[in-house]
Each structure stands twice: as C-alpha cells, then as structure tokens.
C-alpha cells in the first residue's frame, strides 16, 4: 500500500502515458492520433512537474524585499522550467500535425488511416505494374 500511495504521481504518469500511447497506436483516425499524442506528452509534463515538488515547499519566488527566510522550503523550479519548453514544443507539434491533416484531407479526401493506406497501395501497384507485384513494397 505504501508503495502504491507513496508513488502516486508515478502511477498516474504511467497510466496516462499508456492511455495516450495506446490511442496513438490503436486509433486509425489521424485527429485521434494527435489527441493521443497530446495525452502522451501531457503525462510527461505531469511527471516532470511532480518531481519538482518538495514536501511542504512553496512557489520558488523570493519575496520582493529580498528578506529570504532560510526556514521556508521552496519547490525545485528547474523541472518546471524545462517542461515550459516542452509544452511549447508540444504546441508546435500539435499545430503542425493538424495543418498536415488539413492538407491530407484536401489531397486524399479522408483522414482515416486504412482508407489512405488503400489509396497508397493502389498507387504503388500502378507504379510497379511493369516489374510485378512482388517488387517495391513497404517493409
């Protein structure tokens, strides 16, 4: 019990991460994949933020008069700052992914993975019609 409760933040991180990862792998809809990716990344953000927390620690901001009380415990701000960068990266990735989806929808007329794969394998079969179907496949 102690093992579970004492590491609660890690358990949440793992569960959330696995949910996100599962959505990315198992869902065929491109938008849902991006959502899964977001959940996956958000779990890592939470992981970083939770490891910066110190028991009884307060926000790592010095008082304005700079009279620093040595008895006050501060949380570790470094993981928080790191994850600020990662959040920005996450936003950029999401927006780029969505922009790509818009273009894919324009070109293919669908954003379902299986339908796109079907269109692509037809294109590939046409390209390789001279050499035979065994040639030029994916692997």
């Amino acid at each position, binding site marked *: 019990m102690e093992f579970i409760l004492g590491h609660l933040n890690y358990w949440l991180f793992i569960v959330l991460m696995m949910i996100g*990862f599962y959505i*990315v792998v198992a869902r065929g809809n*491109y938008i849902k*994949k991006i959502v899964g*990716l977001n959940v*996956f*990344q958000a779990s*890592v953000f939470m*992981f*970083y933020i939770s*490891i910066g927390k110190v028991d009884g620690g307060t926000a790592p901001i010095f008082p304005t008069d700079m009279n620093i009380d040595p008895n006050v415990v501060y949380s570790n701000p470094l*993981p928080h700052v*790191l994850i600020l*960068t*990662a959040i920005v*990266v996450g936003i*950029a*990735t999401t927006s*780029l*992914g969505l922009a*790509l*989806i818009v*273009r*894919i929808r324009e*070109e*293919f007329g669908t954003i379902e993975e299986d339908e*796109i794969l079907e269109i*692509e394998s037809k*294109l590939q079969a046409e*390209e*390789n019609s*001279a*050499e035979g179907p*065994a*040639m*030029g*496949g*994916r*692997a």
Partner: protein
Amino acid sequence: MANAVILPTLSMIDQLPLLTIAVPLIAGPLCVIFGNRHIAWGLAFLSSLLAFLFSGHMLLQVIDGDVLSYHLGGWAPPLGIEYRVDAANAFVLFLISGISTVVLPYARQSVAHEIKKVSHTLFYCCYLLCFTGLLGVVVTGDAFNVFVFLEISSLSTYVLIAMGAERDRRALTAAYDYLILGTIGATFFVIGIGFLYIATGTLNMADLAVRLADMGDNRTVQAGFAFIVVGMGLKAAIYPLHLWLPGAYTYAPSVVTVFLAATATKAAIYVLLRFMFSVFQPDFVFELHTLTWIIMPLAILAMFAASLIAAFQTDLKRLLAYSSVAQVGYMILGIGLATKTSLSATIIHLFNHGITKAVLFMVVGAFVMRVGSSFTKNLNGLGKQMPWTCTAFVIGGLSLIGVPGTAGFISKWLLIDASLKADLWWLAMLIVMSSLLAVVYVWKAVEVLYMQQPDEGSSAKEVPMSMLLPMWIMAIACVYFGLNTDLTLTSASVAANSLLGGGVQ
C-alpha cells in the same frame, strides 16, 4: 552574443561554439523577413559556409584531444548550459556543415524545379532551422538542450518533407507518420532525461557521467537508459524502428533527401554514442548486455534485411533509403562491439556514409529534374545522355559497396578489423556478405543506366553546372577520403578516445 559585450576580453574565436548555432538560427527568420528567394538562398549559403568555417576551425583546435567549453550566458556548468566541443562532436559538426555547404548550391536549381516559387523563402527558412537544430544537437553538452535542438530540427524536417507534396501527395502522409514516430521518440528521450535527473539532480552531460559512475545498479538509471536508447533509436532509424525513413526519404523534395540522408540520422547516432559511452559507462552490466544482446543482433539484422528489401525496390530513391537503414546497421554494429577500434569505425562510417549518400541522392535528384521520375524503368540508358551524372553515381555506388580506393572501404575495413580484434571472425564474414548485397542493388541501377538502350524520344540532357559541381565535389571526396585517410582516421580515433574518456582499452 550578449556575452561578447559583458566579457570583452573574450575574442571571437572563443565564441565559435555558439556562433556556429547562432548564425544559421538568426539567418532563418531573416529569410522570411526579406521575403526574396534569391536573398534567402544567399543567406542560407552564407550562414552555412560560416558554420562550416567555424566548425573546421574548432576541429583543428580539438584534434589533439583538447576540449572547448563554452558557458552560455556566462553561467558556469553544471548549473548553466554548456556547449562542449571535443573531437567527436567537432567531427560531426564538420560533416553536417560541410554537407550543407555543398548541398546548397545544388539546391538552387533543384528547389526551383520541384517547389513553387512562393514557398522558396519558407523552404530556406525551414532548411536553416533544421540545420541549426542538427548542429545544436551535436554541439551541446546539456542533456535537455539536446531535446530542444532535436525538436527544432525535427519540426522543420516534417515541414520540409511535406513540401514534396507538389510532386507526390504521399509526402504528406510520410511527413505525418514521421511526425508521430518522431514525437514519440523525442518524448521517450525526455522521459529518459527525467529519470536521469531524478537519480542525479543534474543535466550537464559531463556532470551526469561523474555522478552516474557508481550508480550502475540503480533501477531509475537503467530505465532512463532504456528510454534514451529507444527514443534516439527511433531518430537514428535502428532497424525495427526505421519505418518512418523510407517514406520520408522517398517523397521529400530531392534536396531535402540529400541533406537528411547525409546528416539527420548521423546526428542521432552521435547522440547515441555520446550517451552510451560518455554519460553511461560501457562497463555497466545492463549496458553491456544491451550492447551485446540487443544492439548487435539488430545491427546484423539491419545489414541483411534492409539490404535485401533494397534489392527489391523499383524506385531508386526508396532503394537508397533502405540502403541507408542497412548502413545505419554498420554504424550501430560498431557501437555494439564497444571497443576503441569499433567506435572509430562507427564515427568514420558516419562521415563516409554521409558523403557517399550525398552523391547518390544528388544524382537521383538530377534524374528527377531531367526525367521527372526516379523509377528504374524510366532511367533506361541515361549513362549515354547524362554521362557526368551517371559516372558520379557509379563512384558513389562503389563507395557504398566498399570497394578499395573509396571512402566506404576504409570504414568497412576498420569495422572488420574491430570484429577480428574481438575474435568474432564470423562477424567479419557477415560484414563482407552484406556488402555483397549492396553490390546487388547498386548493380541494379548501374545496369539500367548503362546496359539499356535509351527510351525513344527521351530528351534528357546533363543537369546545369551548379548541380553537377556539388555532385562531383562529393564524388571526389568519396575517392579522396578513400585514399588519404589522415583527417578522417585521426579525427575518428581521437573522437573515439574522447568518447570513452580515456577508459576502456
């Protein structure tokens, strides 16, 4: 940059590690601000040339085994971010910036042909950001900074690949696939860094190495190692994690393929090297097992499986992409052996394969420009119509196989030497055998180019000088570094030494 004002005693030379990154990073947005495609190209070329000169200078400074340490913003490491240049990353910087400087003159015509005019400034901006990211990944000595630069290069790479959509709409899905896999890889890497931070409380690589030295049986550290290896393995396209690579290389614009094939996986391999041998100690039990039982078998699998798949391809671009996966196999084989000679082999193959693939993909780009296709069925008899281009392909192909007198021979020779020194004679046999597979797929292209009659009505002619010259610079480099190995061998062995930190053999 601000540093130069605060500490005027520092000369420009001391700022080189930062300037190498800062110049292309600033030039990127400038391309968009000026909004003129000629100026954009000029800026790209100029900043790439400067980065090349800077990294050449740094390589000369560190080739004796010295280390340049640059403290970003004047904050001393391990708290501040440190750019740390030793022979290993100076050599990779030299490769990346060198390739970029040669590719850009080639890019001008090829981009004009493949991408519509309004996008040119944006193309060069993304190219420069990608370039910055790759250089940054290599130059930095801070683990989290690696992630930041990695994402800078990755995000711009996705855009660059998607720009191939004007030729083939499948570029979009290739870019999307890479976006998903690349983000998973990068996120795994961040999780790994997080575990290391929990265990040690530091992000500086040199400091990490010191603090991890006696934590070899710590579970957190082991988990961190696993996440980092898998995350970077995705970026480096280690065999079963290579699925993004063929599509991305096939449908990206030719210039992008040349640049990525020659540099992007190399930067990831460098990060793997740095983490496996500098940050973690190769004598950790878990790492030794990973190297022997996971990395080595995967490397051998890559050498054979990817080469075989390559032999069955009908599109020259896709063929060479699978060949890249196979060649990454040789590089990680050197990592798996984990001796000084094998690491030299990895580093030297990284360089030699970079220049070899640059030639080959440049030639394919020339075919795309003149024939409009890279399928072998459309390339009949081009050896007569485009003799210079096709000769460059033959030279690159020979180097890819590893024929004596070319750069590819040197790296395979070192790798065989390393496996014989480790008493693995069967491994040496396997290396030779997989090289024979390379003969198959290179011959496939050569046969089409030289043994077939040109298609009737085909009006293909030689590409312009601005594309031919970069191609031949790289082709001559393939031969030059096969005959004169002073620079590459010295750099590689000093680099292997500094990666191993003087420890291990």
